[in-house]
Every structure is written in C-alpha cells, then in structure tokens.
C-alpha cells in the first residue's frame, strides 16, 4: 500500500544532481569493475530489447521468411502484406476503435470519479468516512481474476451484457486510483482551500477550480494507469461482450493468436497486430517517461 502512498512528484533525485559534480580519478581495479558492470548491463538490455526488434522486423517479412529466418532483423524482402491485410481486410480497425473508445471514457471517468472520492476521503469530514475507507481497502484486496464470473453475473442481471455500457461503466473507477488521489490530497497544504472557503466558495467549487488544478501531477498518474489499464484489459471484455462489433484489440488479437481467424501460422500478421497494439501505450510511456520512472508504483502489472 505504502508504495501507493508515495507522492510521485519528486523533482530530480539528489543522485542525479550529484552525478555531474566531479569525477575523481579511479584505480585500475575500479575501471575493470566498471567495464564489467557495463558489459552485464548491455547484455541484459539486449535481452530485454531484442524481442521487440525481432517483432517489428518479422511483421515486415513474408510468412516463409519469418519461418526460415526467425532471428534476422532485416527482412529478405520488405513486405507490408501483414499490415495491408489487417487494415483493409479484417476487423482490426473495429477492434482498434473499440479499444480507443473504451480507453478514452474509462480514463476520463477515472480522472473525475477517483479525484472526487479521493478528495472527499482526504479532506471532507463526514460521518461514515472511516467506514468507506475501510471498505475501500477491503475491496482493493480482492484479486481481479476471481471477479470474472461475478462480473458476468451482474452484467447479465442488469441486462447490459454485450453493450458499450457493460464495457465501460464497471471500469469507471478503481479503488487503487481513489487511494492514490486520497494520498495526494493529504500531502498538499489545506490553507489555500480554507481561504477559498472563507471567501464563500462551495465545496464543489473549491474542489473543481482550486484543488483539481493543483493535483495535476497525481492526475497524470491516474491518466497513465487508467490508459494503460484499460487499453491492456482483456478479461473484463471477455465476460462483458460477445459480438464481433464490440471486440477490443486485446480480445481480437487474442483470437488471432489462438488461430481462430486464420489458417497456418501467419506470424507476420499476428506480430504486426501485436506491434500496432503496443504503439499507443509505448507513445504514452515515452511522453510520461520521467514521471513513470519516478513514481514507484507507476504500473504494477498483475
């Protein structure tokens, strides 16, 4: 939990500032040790990066080339057949669109509802607050996979099965996000709001025009987490929908992988689909890289 408690807004770490100060002359043993360190790091980094390079390269290969040269990073003949098929000759654009719709709504919803609830739990004094908070903690500890069948039951019972409502509404808030916002609001001084209150602003007004703008760093965290979470979500969509028009990228690509839609191995096609699917989260990652790297629980993947 505590990891969530960390305010993720630390500017530059002290070590970063120290780095440029001075570089003393080192003895030979230290130089050897340093070289070894770099060698280990470079090898490890290669292991972590190589799969993605192979993925992108293979997506531009022909099926035969992919099978005979699985490791080469340059296709024998460049082929965009996989991409053409995905975009012109399959449901892939529909999947992409559905993922985008869900991600946008879920992210907006979480930014609003999580900060609203987080603010109330951190700042407003009302009877029942401690009970709500205790329940929130309890809810956070329920593992997601256990909820597969339960979620389907409720969605079915409410008569919203196989609709956008079923895909979006259950994801509109998350306990962990509320928790992050609550901790953030506790970390900022109350004096500014108190002043606004004395000036006669209502609670929602204070929240909307004074507190929320100050919460930008925490909101960015919520945006990162919910974007990544809903874009990569699979199990919820499996139990919430069945029709092809509502298939998301995760569900669609999973069906590609298990060979339900294609004959043969068709690795270039599958890898191209997986690569395109990775682009939005990768872009998100590189935009907010600094913040993600400084926030410890940036994206605890379960």
């Amino acid at each position, binding site marked *: 939990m505590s990891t969530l408690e960390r305010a993720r807004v630390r500017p530059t770490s002290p*070590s970063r500032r120290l780095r440029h100060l001075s570089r003393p002359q080192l003895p030979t043993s230290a130089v050897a040790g340093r070289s070894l360190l770099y060698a280990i790091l470079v090898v490890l980094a290669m292991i972590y990066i190589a799969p993605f390079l192979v993925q992108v390269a293979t997506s531009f290969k022909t099926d035969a080339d992919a099978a005979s040269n699985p490791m080469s990073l340059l296709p024998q003949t460049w082929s965009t057949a996989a991409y053409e098929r995905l975009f012109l000759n399959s449901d892939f654009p529909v999947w992409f669109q559905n993922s985008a719709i869900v991600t946008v709504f879920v992210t907006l919803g979480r930014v609003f509802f999580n900060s609203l609830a987080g603010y109330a739990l951190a700042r407003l004094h009302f009877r029942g607050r401690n009970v709500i908070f205790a329940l929130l903690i309890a809810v956070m500890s329920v593992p997601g996979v256990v909820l597969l069948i339960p979620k389907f039951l409720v969605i079915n019972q409410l008569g919203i099965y196989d609709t956008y409502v079923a895909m979006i509404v259950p994801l509109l808030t998350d306990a962990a996000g509320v928790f992050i916002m609550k901790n953030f609001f506790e970390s900022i001084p109350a004096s500014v709001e108190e002043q606004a209150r004395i000036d006669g602003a209502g609670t929602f007004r204070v929240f909307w025009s004074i507190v929320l703008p100050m919460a930008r760093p925490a909101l960015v965290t919520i945006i990162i987490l919910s974007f990544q979470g809903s874009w990569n979500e699979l199990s919820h969509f499996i139990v919430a929908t069945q029709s092809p028009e509502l298939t998301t990228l995760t569900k669609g690509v999973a069906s590609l992988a298990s060979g339900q839609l294609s004959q043969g191995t068709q690795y270039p096609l599958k890898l191209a689909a997986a690569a395109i699917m990775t682009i939005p989260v990768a872009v998100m990652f590189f935009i907010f890289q600094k913040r993600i790297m400084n926030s410890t629980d940036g994206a605890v993947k379960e």
Partner: protein
Amino acid sequence: MSTTARTAAPTSGRSGIRGGETASGWIFTAPMIILLGLFLVIPVLMALWVSVSDWTGRGSPFAGSVQYVGLDNYSALLGGGGLAEQDFGTALRNNAWYVLLVVPIQTGLSLLLAVLVNRQILRGRGFFRTAFYFPSVTSSVAITVLWLFLFSSTGAVNKLLSFIGVNGPNWFNDPSGVLHNILGVFGVQTGPAALTGNTFLGISFWEWLAGPSVAMSAFILMAVFTTSGTFMLLFIAALQNLSGEVTEAAMMDGANGWQRFWRVTLPQLRPTLFTVLTLGLIGSWQVFDQIYTGTQGGPGKTTLTPAYLSYQTAFNNQAWGQGAAIAFILFVIIVFFTLFQRWLLAERQVSNRRMRPYLPSATLPTPTLPTTTAGGTK
C-alpha cells in the same frame, strides 16, 4: 491512517466553514460507492450464491428453478474423485510451480537490475531503466503473441540454442515436466510406488513433483520478462531513499561491497522486499490472459491454471457453480499465502531485534525504516 483524519475526530462542535460537509462528502463518494458496490461487492455475493447452487447459466440465478446444493460444488473439486477434482489438482500443481519459480526469480532479478542501474556514476542510466521497464507497459496479449513466435519450434529461441549446439524443445507443444526430464537424464523414468500409488486432489504425488512443463516454463520466463521492470522501479525508489550514512559507517568499518549489500542494504530494503513478494505472489496466482491467448490450458493440461479453469468451467462447460467455487478457493489460497508470508517476514524481524544486543552496533541497519516505503497493506 492520515493525521488529518485524527485531528478531525471531534466533529460535533464544528460549524462555519465545515458546515454541510456530510452531504458533500457522501455526494463526492457516491459514484465510487455505487460503482464499486455494483460491480465488485454485489457480484462477489452473487457468485457466492452461485457457487452453492446448481445454476446452469440459463435465466437468472435467482429463479425458482435454481436449487441450493450446499457445498457439493466445492466437494466435487476437493474430493469428488472425478475429472473435476483431477483438473483442479492439475491446475493447482501447474500454478504452484509457476509461483514457486516466478516469485523468487522476478524478485531477485528486479533487485539485481535495481542495484546495477542505481549506481551513482553510470552513463546511460535512463536508457537501461527504459529498456528493462518497457516490457512491463505492453499488454499481456501482445507479449504472449510475441512469445508464441519466439518459442515456436523454428523460432528465435531455438535458433539461438542451436548456435550453442542445443536442440531446443517444441516449447508450447511439450507437456513433459522439467523435473521429470532432469530425472530422466539420470535414467529415472518412473517414480517409486510410494509416489505413483498415492494421490492428492486426483493426481499422484509423482505427477505433483513433475515440475512445470516445458510449455509452462516458457510462460515462467515471460512473467519474469514482463514484471522484473516494474519491481525494479520499486527497488530503485527504495534504494534512493536509503540514507548513505549507514553504508558509509559500514565502509569505515571495512565491510566490502558484498557484505555491505547483504548486511546493510538488504535489511533496509525489507519493506520493499515485502511489497514486491506480496504483489508477485498475488499476481502469479492469477495467470489468465497468457493462457487464454496462448495455450488454452494445453498441451496435456499442463498450462491449465485455476483462474483459467474457473473461466472454462463456467463459460465453456456451463458448470457455473463449480466455476465460481474454483474462484473462491483461489481467493482463499491467495489470502492464505499473503498472510503466511506476512507472518513469516514479521517473525524474522522480531528475531533480528533479539539479535541486536549481540551484534557490533556499527554494522547494524537503522531500525527506523524509510517512511515512504513502510510495509504494504496489500
């Protein structure tokens, strides 16, 4: 909890600028309460009912035709002697090996990466961190697709193995257990009768000891690949919060780098270690996406996991009661291991404290832990 909560305790006499906060408090939290209640609390209660009923997926589970069957669904899984018990036992075995290997390896590797990357003087720190973390942001579906290709019989991994003269296995189609294979190298083909003759949850002890299948091993590598970056970030944050004084003191006392790490740094990382182990344990008992995307439990049911079995039993076989029962047993397992681990680590902390008077004071870790990384509740 927070200090603001405590100072706010005597609310009775308040008025003025605090007036009307009860109403707004409830209004502000209402969306969260409704959403989490409707899609988390109520579903769990409904599933609890379904797990003790004979609902077949038709109509409402609360219709009059649905019968209460007591703990039948649970007993079929835990001692029915049928296929349900055998599948459940197999799924538990598979996932237990997965947890047993993934949790220590990912924790160790992420700690190693954090220590390597956290050097004060290191060129390209940002690059290395990014490289190690990047697999964590990608979706499990995309990674599984990539893994299916890399570990296919003619894939990159086998190509790489062939360079060093190893004839790689047909990873995702190989149901043989790794431990059985190792024993096979030494000529042990069948287990002793004591192991093969007795069963637990429908499968023999010899089968329990088969180890992860070759197919499952590929998933284990994948889990380590995708999670080590996330946990590396947790360790880096913790390392940056450590005070240098203790390490310096140890250095003055002549402790070498190795001793400093094991005796000084690691004890101070205990809260983070706890968080990482807990998150790892919770996460690795919930293997679903990879199996759904990749193998659907095959080959030979050796990548079947309780989470996937629960889904399959309910949605494909329409045995909803049994599927829900599997989910709840899984829930209990996760809670049990989390509590067990908490107890285990707490116990060791006490014994450390007892040791304190007998150790030279300079090399001791400060008992005050970095506040920002205090033990997790999760």
